[in-house]
């Protein structure tokens, strides 16, 4: 293979990888649909939902959005701000539990 051709190939990826990820996304979506179909409940449901969700999101970001091939400077700039979101989520979970508690404790009908 001559030098120019190598360069050409380096700037684009084989079609196979896209088809793979594409297929995987369908399979994972099917699985997360099955979580509802079989009516899993409780922690099992939640962990399955989150697992499939993050896996799908990760695949889309890594391969369809090429983040896997990007340099770390970009990847890190994009991912670190998510800690602020994570903090917001955790605190809001604590907040809604507290709100719900006061509502049930002070407003629920009957003693």
């Amino acid at each position: 293979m001559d030098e120019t051709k190598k360069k050409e190939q380096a700037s684009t990826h084989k079609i196979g990888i896209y088809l793979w990820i594409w297929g995987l996304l369908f399979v994972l979506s099917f699985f997360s649909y099955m979580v509802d179909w079989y009516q899993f409940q409780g922690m099992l449901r939640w962990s399955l939902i989150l697992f499939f969700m993050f896996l799908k999101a990760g695949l889309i970001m890594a391969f369809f959005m090429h983040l896997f091939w990007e340099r770390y400077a970009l990847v890190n700039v994009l991912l670190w701000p998510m800690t602020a979101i994570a903090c917001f989520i955790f605190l809001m979970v604590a907040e809604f539990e507290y709100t719900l508690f006061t509502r049930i404790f002070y407003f629920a009908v009957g003693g």
Partner: protein
Amino acid sequence: MSDPKIEGLELKPGFRGMAQDTGSDQTMFKGVHWGKAMMWIFLLSDTFIFSCFLISYMKGRGSTPVEWPNPSEVFALNAFGVPVPLLLIAIMTFVLITSSGTMALAVKYGYEKNRKMCGWLVLATALGGLTFVGMQAFEWSKLIHEGVRPWENPFGAPQFGSFFFMITGFHGTHVTFGVIFLFIYAYKVFAGHYDEGKRGWFTTMKGDYVEIEILGLYWHFVDLVWVFIFAFFYLW
């Protein structure tokens, strides 16, 4: 999209490379087009918008003592006389992922300067998006027909309708804008603007197939958001 060649600088991989990129002059994201960097930062900002929506939804749903409607029943669709839970949503997910796949291929063929393939794939993506918006319109009208309103619904907590219409509406708006741009870009690909480097209508930048990748980033992001909405709104 893959390692660029920077004159006078040998790019190192991994975190050492990151430190080197950050410390170097001129650009921090080596070999990343201005427009692409902009789209990434914009998507980061947009992520915060959708996160705020979903966090509000979580807080709203978690703190209401009224029972939340079961999405599995609310969004069920009758197929052959049997109610199938989340049928329409499953098809919508299927359509959106399909369009995401065609978009990814369009980007690939764009980089290979394969005008025909790229154009057709962008067009296919646009049609997929259009189908999605159409199905969403159908879903909305079905729910409205069943009495779901932003301020009330017959199934339980009134916030259900509020958050449903607001979040899917905001997502649907994103899809709609994406579809409009996909059609425009399909035209531009077929017209060869990216092959000749024709300047855009409002910008002084020369056309390049990197614009397909930029649009692709947006489109995949819309798909990404749907993954989260699907998990949190329909499966929770």
